[in-house]
């Protein structure tokens, strides 16, 4: 096996993108080195291996960090879309609760029913606030959004337990959305830049 073949194998230690960009130049430089050094000596190969051992892990780490940074941008974009959807859905549920209130007010109203509707509206307002906090995440951080989502979930559960007035859609938004957003806000902690808190 020639020295160049061995070096070509060693080049596999470098990230593929780096190899594609500089692999040929590195081979050429290695060939130049071979012409001016005795490739049969241990010292020559020790220097070659030391160079690879010193530079390849650092370049791998850089490539890995770069990919992480790209993922962070994706997560951030997804969270912005989730924030907008949350605001829209919460506003929709508030309108629905207002309609429910108007329809219910025509007959005699039970105290538990009134409290359940008020709690439902309160949960939706908190959800809307959480959506706004997610949209303004870079300025406010995660914590306000988390607190609003927790409070919204508790209010929605309390409203549902007090009186079963909510539609399937309102229940999905009231329970499912806060749980999903809380998972998203806790899960990608290390990769998202949505972390000013």
């Amino acid at each position, binding site marked *: 096996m020639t020295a160049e073949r061995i070096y070509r194998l060693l080049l596999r230690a470098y990230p593929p993108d*780096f190899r594609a960009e500089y692999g040929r*130049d590195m081979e*050429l430089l290695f060939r130049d080195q071979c012409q001016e050094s005795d490739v049969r000596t241990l010292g020559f190969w020790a220097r070659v291996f030391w*160079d690879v051992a*010193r*530079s390849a892990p*650092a370049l791998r780490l850089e490539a890995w960090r770069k990919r992480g940074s790209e993922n962070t941008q994706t997560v951030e974009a997804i969270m912005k879309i989730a924030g907008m959807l949350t605001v829209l859905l919460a506003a929709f549920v508030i309108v629905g609760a207002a309609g429910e209130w108007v329809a219910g007010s025509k007959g005699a109203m039970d105290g538990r029913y009134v409290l359940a509707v008020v709690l439902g509206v309160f949960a939706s307002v908190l959800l809307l606030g959480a959506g706004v906090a997610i949209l303004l995440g870079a300025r406010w951080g995660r914590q306000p959004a988390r607190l609003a989502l927790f409070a919204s979930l508790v209010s929605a559960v309390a409203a549902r337990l007090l009186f079963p007035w909510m539609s399937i859609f309102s229940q999905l938004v009231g329970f499912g959305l806060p749980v999903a957003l809380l998972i998203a806000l806790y899960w990608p902690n290390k990769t998202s830049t949505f972390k000013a808190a």
Partner: protein
Amino acid sequence: MTTKRGAGRPPEAYLPLPPATFHILLALADGELHGYAIMKGVAARSAGTVRLGPGTLYGALKRLLETGLVEERGERADPERGDERRRYYRLTHLGLSVVRAEARRLDAMVRAARRKKLIGVRPA
């Protein structure tokens, strides 16, 4: 294709430079060079104490290109080294400012060491 980071930063913001990076910039202060010429220049200037292998050299060049301290000047053959086309690199204005700033920083440190008689005097 590379993207330049940190545009608009003052030269001092890049300091201190890693020794290998400083040596590469110093070699490029002579003009456009290809990888092997940079490597030889560094070895000669440091009297063989700094030896850049291909991985260290091109890793550093990649970072220097990304930060805009160095730019590529196309490919051409070096008549002294055969027909193979080689990529040439040269300092940018920013690269020149940064290597000057680093040289000044090191010079100030050497002068401070001299004032304290740590160098430049014979040990008793």
